[in-house]
Every structure is written in structure tokens, then in C-alpha cells.
């Protein structure tokens, strides 16, 4: 074997080892472990109350409500859950001399998270003119401030501005422009609700003249709560 070829290997090894020594410097690594515990957007209906919750006969008579505005056919929109018209107006009401109808309200936890997320209202033995007040109390039971951005009434989305302008919501079950039920909504929208805080809103529900005997009408209202910094009301005064 050639001597020159034999020398190449040791020289290469020495070179490699010397380089390793050069790289064997002392070092220490600092670590930053970041744990992000996210908060929770969580709201609860803590109280749903109707003012006429005792079955008759009682000494408390019913109330008769009459809207001072009435929608025409062009005001109605079909939402998939019925026809809805939202117009400007108010309700004139008076105490009657009899206790005939009554209503009940209760809350339920439908998603099993320990908070009541659904309120149910049932009117019994209703008749045209019967009016009842529904009071809703919503609390922020999460850890992040929230706004309630929208009401969705039978598929119609309503914002604070729309409610302030027009708050009579007429519901027509069969699309003949003759609404059977009316809800007058008051605002729960556009106000920041911090964790631990709550808001109360009172709505009026009126059975209207076109309502049929022995029938049943169903209304669904959704309240959409979102984290405050992504609310449509964030930054607005």
C-alpha cells in the first residue's frame, strides 16, 4: 500500500477531532413555556317572569292591548319560520274586569352546561286583545365581557338600531297579512355586560284580533351574545 495514502486517514481524523474541540463550547438554553388559558363566553337567562302567572280565577284581572299601528302586506317578510313585519308604533292597554287567560314562564338548561340557556313562555286560554308582560334577566356568567348583538325573532334578525326605530314585531302564521301575535321588544342590545353583571328587559306580548279559536301559535326569539371586542357595537357610543 502506498505510504501517502496511509497518512491521509490519520490527518483527516486529527482535523475532525480538533474541530470538535472547537465546537464543544459551554452553552445553556433558556426556555419560555407559554400556557394560554382561554376564557369563556357564557350567558345565562337567570330569570324569566310573566306578570300573569297564576291560573284564574284570581283577583288580578287581565290586560287588553291594542297596537296603534298595523302592518300592510308589503311590511311582511317570509323567514322560513313564518311571516314577520317590524314597524313603528306602540301599544295602548287597559285593565279588564276579568281574569280569563294566564301565562307561565320557566327556564331550562338545554345544552347541559349548567346554565339556563332557554326560556319558555306559554299562554293559556288566550283571546284577542290579551296582553302579558315578559321580563327576562340575562347574566354574563362567563369570564369575558359580552354584548348581545341581535334578536332573531322567527328568523328575522334585529339590531339595536332597528329595535329603537321600530319595535312592534307582528307575526303572521299563515301569510295572509293578518298577524295573530305581536311582540313589543325592548332593548337588551348594544350594552356591554361584564362578567358577573346582568341586564333586564321587559317585552309585551299581545294576542291580536285575527288569532283563531282553539289554535296554538309558536314564537322563537334568539338572543345572540358575542365577545365584546368582536361585537358590532364595540367602540360605538
Amino acid at each position, binding site marked *: 500500500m502506498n505510504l501517502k495514502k496511509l497518512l491521509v486517514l490519520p490527518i483527516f481524523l486529527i482535523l475532525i477531532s480538533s474541530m470538535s474541540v472547537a465546537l464543544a463550547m459551554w452553552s445553556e438554553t433558556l426556555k419560555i413555556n407559554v400556557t394560554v388559558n382561554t376564557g*369563556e*363566553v*357564557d*350567558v*345565562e*337567562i337567570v330569570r*324569566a317572569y310573566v306578570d300573569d302567572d297564576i291560573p284564574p280565577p284570581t283577583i288580578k284581572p287581565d290586560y287588553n292591548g291594542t297596537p296603534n299601528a298595523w302592518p300592510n302586506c308589503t311590511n311582511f317578510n317570509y323567514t322560513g319560520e313564518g311571516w314577520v313585519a317590524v314597524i313603528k308604533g306602540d301599544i295602548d292597554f287597559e285593565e279588564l274586569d*276579568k281574569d*280569563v*287567560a294566564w301565562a307561565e314562564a320557566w327556564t331550562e338548561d*338545554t345544552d347541559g352546561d349548567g346554565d339556563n*340557556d*332557554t*326560556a*319558555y*313562555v*306559554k*299562554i*293559556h*286560554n*288566550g*283571546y*284577542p286583545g290579551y296582553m302579558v308582560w*315578559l321580563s*327576562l334577566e*340575562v347574566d354574563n356568567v*362567563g369570564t*369575558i365581557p*359580552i354584548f348581545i*348583538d341581535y334578536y332573531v325573532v322567527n328568523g328575522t334578525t334585529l339590531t339595536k338600531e332597528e329595535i329603537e326605530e321600530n319595535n312592534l314585531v307582528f307575526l303572521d302564521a299563515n301569510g295572509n297579512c293578518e298577524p295573530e*301575535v305581536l311582540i313589543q321588544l325592548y332593548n337588551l342590545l348594544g350594552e356591554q355586560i361584564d362578567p358577573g353583571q346582568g341586564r333586564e328587559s321587559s317585552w309585551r*306580548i299581545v*294576542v291580536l284580533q285575527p*288569532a*283563531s*279559536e*282553539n*289554535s*296554538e*301559535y*309558536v*314564537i*322563537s*326569539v*334568539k*338572543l*345572540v*351574545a*358575542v*365577545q365584546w371586542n*368582536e361585537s358590532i357595537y364595540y367602540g360605538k357610543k
Partner: protein
Amino acid sequence: MKNSTYYACTILAVVLLFVVLSNVAYAMWSETLHVNMKMSMGEFDTRICCYKVLTCCRHCNVTSQLSDNSKALFVSFENLHPGWIEWVALIICNKGTLPAELIGTSVTIVEASDGIEDHFHYEVHYYGPLRIHDLKNIRCCRLPLPFNSSLPLQFDPGQKVLVLIELHIDALYHGEGELNTVFAIRTSLWH
């Protein structure tokens, strides 16, 4: 060819970046509360549940029929005479679940001998609300009853109202031929 691949890749990258950023922007947390309302309407059901034609006229023929829905009563009188008086007694029942208000009773001549309309008169008397069950004790000679009520007359579910209708033809009527009439009696109610 190379240029077109480069542009395609650039566009794809921009779109992906936009989609990623958009997703971040819309990933807001939200929760929806529900308010479900159910309204069960009551029933307004009033009807003539009992009636009696009280006649003091022995030669007059009387037939009567209640409509299928018990909302109207048809009474036919034949062989009447000037000065004729008859009474029709009705019990109006509230069989619904809502209070009712009796606002009037209409007596109309459906069919009559010529010229009788101008000489026919009626008067209605209301009593109630009562717990009367039948008209056995109502007799022609004792009418009208005292203590009548004025309209409108409210009566609650389960309650009844007695309506007495006095029908008569002027004693001074001098028509010729037979005197026959068919009356329709309807009560007007409100709730």
C-alpha cells in the same frame, strides 16, 4: 410556461393567506339564548241550548227548528190573528272557555203574509247570568218576569242567560187572508 406557473402559485398563496386571515377574523366566540313562546287560544262557544215557544193561542199552529250550529232559531206561526201575542224563551249557554257578552237579539221576518211587517212588533227581555237549566217553569201567563237585566250582558263560561221575546201583531190590523209568518231569531254576542 414558467411565468404562468409562478403567477398561479402567487395567486394561490394570496388566497390561502386571505382565507387563513379571514378565519381568524370570524372566529369570535358567541352563545345563543333562546326564548320559545307558545300561545294556546281559548274557545268562544255560545249557543242556544234550550228554547220554548209559549203560546196562548189555541188555533195557531207553531213549528220551530234550531239551526245545526244552534246559533239561530227559526219559528213558524200560522193562522194568526190581529192582537196575537206569543212568547219565545231562549237559554243562551256559554260552553266555551272565554267570557261572552250578549249585545243584542235580532228578530227578523223570513216569510210573511202581505202587509204584516208594518204591524208586527217585538220586545226582548234579558235575565242573567243565571244557573237555570230548563224552561219547565216558564209559563205564558206569568211573562215578562221581573228583574230583567240591561245590555250588554256578560256571562262567563258555564253561565247562562235567559232571553224572553214577546212577539205581537197590532190589534188594529185589518188585513185580509191568512196571517202566517216565519221568524228567524239570532243573538249577537261579543267576546
